[in-house]
């Protein structure tokens, strides 16, 4: 079984209005890096959130590691989620905690609850967290407060947190949006390493098409909740890109510049 994500005919609408996801079918296999591109409001974040069950889709199925996400119990979801590393678009760091504590959140599901309540993590987890921080260029930042970091530094802490899960599936929601060109390529190289060496599956949303062409194996176009194309990165044409990024409806506006 190489397929990690198998999404079939997924639909979702938030307040019984127009659907945000409208019949999405998509699969991601081990070792693949799949980029979802689309305008702001196309439904990229919603799609990623359905995969780890943070959003319960209103229709269709989403199977991850061969289990139906919607059918899982709360504890089942926890066991699934610890195998999925998620990088949030808004970072979602705990501002009033240290950088190290933020990264250790990635290890929470592997630590007994009582021990974690007293912030007692096994030494190898702490070492792993530090290694993840070093990987994203934040060695020595462990004791800093998360709220005292720059936007790009916060984003890298969020990446380190997801990496600390040593997950077989990475969901990255615009994980390089706040970074400079060199850091961007470094992060993409880390993601590439994870996909190649650990044979992890990676699903990311991004706005930088050139970056997607360079580092991803497949690119998927999402427009108003529908997939417009799904092809190997090398075969994506300008016309495909223009089609998905064409703006003519009131609901969508590309805020990134």
């Amino acid at each position, binding site marked *: 079984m190489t397929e990690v994500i198998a999404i079939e005919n997924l639909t979702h609408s938030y307040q019984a209005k127009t659907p945000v996801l409208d019949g999405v079918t998509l699969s991601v296999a081990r070792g693949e890096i799949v980029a979802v591109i689309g305008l702001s409001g196309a439904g990229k974040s919603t799609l990623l959130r359905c995969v*780890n069950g*943070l959003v319960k889709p209103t229709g269709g199925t989403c199977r991850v590691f061969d289990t139906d996400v919607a059918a899982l119990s709360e504890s089942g979801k926890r066991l699934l989620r610890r195998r999925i590393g998620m990088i949030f678009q808004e970072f*979602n*760091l705990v*501002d*009033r905690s240290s950088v190290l504590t933020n990264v250790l959140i990635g290890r929470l599901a592997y630590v007994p609850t009582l021990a974690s309540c007293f912030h007692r993590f096994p030494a190898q987890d702490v070492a792993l967290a530090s290694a993840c921080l070093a990987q994203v260029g934040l060695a020595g930042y462990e004791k800093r407060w998360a709220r005292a970091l720059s936007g790009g530094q916060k984003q890298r802490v*969020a990446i380190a947190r997801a990496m600390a*899960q040593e997950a077989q599936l990475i969901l990255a929601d615009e994980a390089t949006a706040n970074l400079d060109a060199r850091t961007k390529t470094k992060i993409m190289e880390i993601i590439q390493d994870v996909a190649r060496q650990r044979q992890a599956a990676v699903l990311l949303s991004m706005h930088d098409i050139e970056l997607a062409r360079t580092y991803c194996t497949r690119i998927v176009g999402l427009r108003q909740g529908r997939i417009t194309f799904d092809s190997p990165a090398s075969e994506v044409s300008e016309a495909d890109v223009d089609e998905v990024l064409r703006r003519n409806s009131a609901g969508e506006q590309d805020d990134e510049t």
Partner: protein
Amino acid sequence: MKFYGATPPASKMMRPDNMPRTEPVTGNMQERMQSVRQNAGAWFSTVLTGAIAVWAFHGLQFNFSHLSTGIARQSSQLVHLFPLNRGDWFYDLALMRTLWDPLQATMQMAIVGTVVGALLAFPVSFAAARTGYFPRPISNLVKTLLNVARAVPTLVYALVAVSLVGLGSPAGASAIAFVTFISLGKLYAEGLESVAPGPIEAVRAAGGNSVQVFIFAMLPQVLPLYLSTMLYSLEYNIKDSFIVGIVGAGGLGFSLQNAINLYKWQDAGVIIFFLVVLVNLVDYISYRVRKSFS
């Protein structure tokens, strides 16, 4: 002033919602009706506010003719409040000794009341907060109970406590603990409700359970608030424990009540002086502590 940043793209500058709204004199009917209705609303609330003010001042029936004789009489007694040119140092020392215990009792009531109240408020705030830890009907019920209980003045709880526990500072401490529990329960619940959802999502996405969600995502966000509101209520409770004393719940308030009953104005002056010093001291310490972790 110079503008160093890049000028916004023309497309954004021309967005209609960014343009100043210049209302033509002949605006459409709906808009004019709306402004008429807003004007009427403004008039109504002004008149209502005025009427309430008139009612309040008229109803109180200030009798200013009484003021001059009152001031004269009070000032002759107010002088006695100040322990000036008395020269009876032995009396003062004896007074210090008799007031030392009530002074301590006032502080102890406030501290015990605050700590016990905060400890009780902590679990109850979970039930009261609409955060998903408890079903919605339960949190609504707990919140309503807290609101109702908050409307009752401390003095009433003190009277009840005195009748239950008997005269003395244990009664005062119980009343203060209860009042603190009520108000902190509500404030803590509001703190829990206003927590940023992002970190909670992050812990859940990593597979953390609800205990870990609380410890890692919520507690860091609410702890500073919990501690600073607790210190606030300590400041408040020092004054409350004084007032509670007046109905027999011990401490300086009780001493003041006794002094006034026995026309010992100098004692009363010293007691009030102690209270002023104590309140300011606690305010200052609490302010410094709150600053240190905000």
